[in-house]
């Protein structure tokens, strides 16, 4: 701060004159109020709050006053400055708000316009459903196991109790790998991964196996030579058919909703004994369409149940071939076709849509199924 104003020359405002201070103050307040925009307000600020403004000059003169007058003058000037500053800030806030409002109004766009960055792509629904199945079982503490697609015949068939002359082996229309007698095939099911899991892991084994498999079917609306399965295998002490049912019921609920269940129908598979077909309670009509011609159900054909896959108690001969102690352990296995699952779950009508690679098929799903 400067020292006492020795060459005291009272100009414009005499700090001691209350009316002068009040007039100065009122002029400033009036100027601020009348400022129509931010530029005018800035001008007024220079005039009434700037270094050369009367109130600033008056303030500067306080130091030159006689000591007995300083206190009163200081208070008076201080109060006036406070009022002017507040008036300025108040007007500034108002004008800024007005300005912003005008600006936002003029900047309005059509938010429905498209933009040039690529839209989100899409997963193939077979991948999505594979991952969903994997997630259901990893949540149960199972592992996701995998294996090669060109597979040893022994693992694809013999180890699974499909013996060379058994009709079941002929029923799986197999692609054989050259040269004839190479002992290798395109796997006809994901089940060789069962054998691999048992050969490389020690019980307890809880694995789920999604994967691509091959059979020499011609492509049509309901068949494809290359398709996806998901398979489950459990080998542990005391495993029973009841555990298989419990697992399938849980699987059905996880994939199709609460209150649904699986149903088993006796069947034959070489690698399981006892064996069964898995039906799924229709998730659309929940059985209400059965015997009810007024409420037909397209999803289940008014059967109330949908055929879903195969399952059974692991045939002890399979355990034996894979080195599992059949005295101590038993197991169960199940498998489903994922194309078929998508067909009835998502209403895909033609198998060809799933395998031809038309982007429109994947894109209708995006990242959810």
């Amino acid at each position, binding site marked *: 701060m400067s020292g006492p104003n020795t060459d005291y020359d009272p100009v414009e405002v005499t700090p001691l004159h209350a009316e002068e201070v009040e007039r100065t103050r009122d002029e400033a307040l009036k100027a601020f109020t009348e400022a129509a925009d931010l530029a005018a307000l800035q001008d007024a600020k220079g005039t009434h709050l700037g270094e050369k403004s009367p109130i600033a000059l008056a303030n500067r003169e306080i130091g030159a006053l006689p000591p007995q007058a300083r206190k009163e003058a200081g208070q008076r000037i201080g109060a006036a400055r406070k009022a002017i500053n507040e008036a300025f800030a108040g007007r500034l806030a108002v004008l800024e708000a007005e300005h912003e409002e005008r600006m936002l109004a003029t900047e309005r766009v059509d938010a429905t316009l498209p933009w040039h960055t690529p839209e989100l792509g899409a997963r193939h629904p077979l991948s999505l459903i594979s991952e969903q199945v994997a997630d259901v079982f990893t949540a*149960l503490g199972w592992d996701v196991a995998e294996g090669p*697609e060109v597979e040893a015949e022994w693992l694809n068939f013999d180890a699974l109790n499909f013996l060379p002359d058994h009709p079941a082996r002929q029923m799986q229309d197999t692609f054989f*790998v050259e040269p004839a007698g190479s002992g290798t095939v395109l796997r006809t099911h994901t089940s060789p991964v069962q054998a691999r899991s048992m050969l490389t892991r020690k019980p307890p084994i809880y694995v789920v196996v999604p994967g691509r498999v091959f059979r020499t079917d011609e492509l049509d609306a309901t068949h494809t030579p290359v398709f996806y399965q998901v398979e489950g295998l459990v080998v542990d002490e005391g495993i029973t058919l009841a555990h298989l049912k419990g697992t399938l019921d849980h699987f059905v609920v996880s994939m199709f909703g609460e209150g649904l269940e699986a149903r088993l129908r006796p069947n034959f598979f070489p690698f399981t004994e006892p064996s069964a077909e898995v039906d799924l309670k229709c998730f659309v009509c929940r059985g209400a369409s059965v015997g009810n011609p007024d409420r037909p159900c397209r999803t289940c054909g008014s059967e109330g149940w949908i055929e879903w896959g195969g399952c059974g108690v692991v045939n002890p001969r399979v355990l034996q071939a894979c080195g599992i102690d059949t005295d101590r352990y038993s197991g169960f296995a199940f498998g489903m076709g994922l194309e078929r699952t998508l067909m009835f779950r998502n209403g895909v009508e033609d198998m060809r849509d799933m395998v031809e690679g038309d982007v429109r098929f994947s894109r209708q799903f995006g990242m959810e199924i």
Partner: protein
Amino acid sequence: MRVPLSWLHEYVDLPAEVTGRDVGEKLIRAGLEVETVEESDLTGPLVVGKVLTYDDEPQKNGKTIRWCSLDIGKDEPQWVVCGANNFEVGDLVVVVLPGAVLPGGFAISARKTYGHVSSGMICSSSELGLGDDGTHGIVVLEPGEAVPGDDAIELLALRDDVLDIAVTPDRGYCLSIRGVAREAATAYGVELKDPAGLRLTGSGQGGYPVRVDDAAACSVFVTRTVTGIDPKALSPRWMQKRLLASGMRPISIGVDITNYVMLELGQPIHGYDKARLSGEIVVRRATPGEKLMTLDDQTRELDAEDLLITDDSGPIGVAGVMGGASTEISDATADVVIEAAHFHPIVIARASRRHKLSSEASRRFEREVDPLLPRYAAQRVADLLVDLAGGTLEADETVVDTHALPEPTTIRADHSARVAGASITIEETLRHLRSVGCTVEPAPAGAVPAPLAAGVHAPATEVGGDDLLSVTPPSWRPDLHDPNDFAEEVIRLFGYDNVPSILPPAPGGQGLTVAQRRRRRVATALVGAGLTEVVSYPFTGAADFDAMGLPADDPRRTTVKLVNPLSDEEPSMQTMLLATLLRTAERNAGRGATDLAIFQTGLVFLPKGESKPAPLLPVEHRPSDAEIQTLNDALPDQPLHVGVVLTGSRTPTGWWGKGQPVSWADAVQLARTIASAVGVEPKVRNGEVAPWHPGRCAEFSVDGKVVGHAGELHPKVCQAFGLPARSSAVELDLEALITAGPSSIAAHPFSSYPVAKEDVALIVPADVAAAEVEAALAEGAGELLESVRLFDLYTGEQIGEGKKSLAFALRFRAADRTLKENEVADARQAAVQVAVDRFGAVQRVG
């Protein structure tokens, strides 16, 4: 197996009102795969009529129609037009009246024809679904068989549901009415009248001479001889109807009867024309070079492993598969030799496969036929020939029988309950085992349970004691030998629905593997970049390789090939995903999607060079680790790849301005995206490999190993696949990238001191890669360098021909202090110096 419901009724005391659908439902619950139930679509009125009058009326079209009046049990006669003429006044015929629907959905109404109003129609055999009765005309009933007005549907049993059952390989016995009837009887809890429960009239000796040289392959061989049949006799309507309903075509009385008995009992029968047999029948293996013309008039080269039926003339049949033409029954056959034999299933399965000949007989023998059946089946055929064709049955009978009966298996009484995890009582177990035909006795003292009773020593549901049972399967169930085989029978009859549902607690898992997680991330990243995932078949061939411009000696032309590909043009498994992904792009482009961004992940198949066949190892025990290794060694390498194809515009033209066409740089950037999604920073340099543009291809490597390429496709490749010019593509070995990813990432502290920014512009020869200059700067700048980024690229007059200017933004920062100006200047100079030394770079000033 097609099963007419009326045939089941004959042997099972089913409730009278039961429908095919009901029976089908019960059989499904018992484990038969009933695929369809064909319900007859025939509805009446269909009545017996008596011909009162008729007039033959010649027509302009050359036909003669009959205008008939019929007594159908009403006051007024019924007038109909009939095109047939095989009836006389007074004959009883079958008349369908307006409002009825005949088989095949053929609705009948009164209609004007040939100048009359025909109120219905007189029916032929085939119109009623009864097959061809040989008359080429309408059905004439026997006098006194009915009276006018009788319901013909009931009279002729015309309405019959048919169950179509897909018989699984373990249930060979269900390839017969007898087998299905047994299941139906069990399902309904009623008695079975065994159709094989016949009185045998044969003497057991002295029949047509037979010698069996291979008893292991042919354990039973029975012949009966029926003489003096009327070969012109017609098979009765009911038999033709059942054969037709079962999917077999009536042929002649002799053939129809053998087929009928096969369907009924499950025992394939062969009939020989005795006059055409010469000498002893010998059952033996073929000798190389032998040939046989089979019933289908094909001459077949025989294999040394084929089991043959022969006589003095040579082969007269491939045992259990198909008979020979030279001895077949014809419409001149008077004396018939009936063969009913038991052949080993594997012998028949192999012969059937070898000759690509699957017959009704081979399908049954492959699944093994009841070895006790041959004598009964031969008796049944003989009885029918006598009854229906007027033959005489000789009492002499040949019976060769060396078949061993099934051995008992010792199982725990509670084994089924333990397998099921359900409370199945011992009493229920015994009842179910007996109902499938097993003989069950307490096991003799000292017996031990059979092996392969998995898990019986584990703690399981307590349902019974440790009693042991000795269970002998019935002769028609060769599939029952292991403890679990019996358990399945018990549990299916106990009812799968009655087994509780218990979710087994798994031990804690570790979630997805690192590789599985990373694959998902790559897919998510690509989708985020706007790509759409597709799938395609992995089959490829020379046309794809040519289209991709692979040189003749390109290793990717060396493929894993299939013996039996879907198409001869695509015999190979893909060695690169682009082989099939480009075809997918082509298909999409053909469907109008020319702006395309697609990706696929999948295995490629890389032959290992010389590899030994994968052995068929034994199954009685675990193979050794060395043996498992031989299996894996025989397989090709199958790494997981990711492929991307981009075509057309990467960003569209729009209100914001012009869009961006797909460029090599989009592909390279996506490859970088893939790598960074798995935490890998690959080395990138220019590459030159098909199918890419030789000057617009980036090669990616990790730890010195090339992991793939990205860039613009060669113009010829775009052309060959019908893709827009400048289409671009990526193919990376995703497995190698994933493996190279970090196991974990250590966090580095970051400095809060100020950053110093320096720009450097360097003029280098045009063929120097920007990435290498960047690497040189980074190397020279030392540890104070925080980041380096190329921000400008310039070529032109100002810097001269063959040169380019690269401008980099360098950011320096120290962890522990504010950098002084001279420190930054020194670091910058050191960075530039390495570029100068390495590439002759010149700093561009101003």
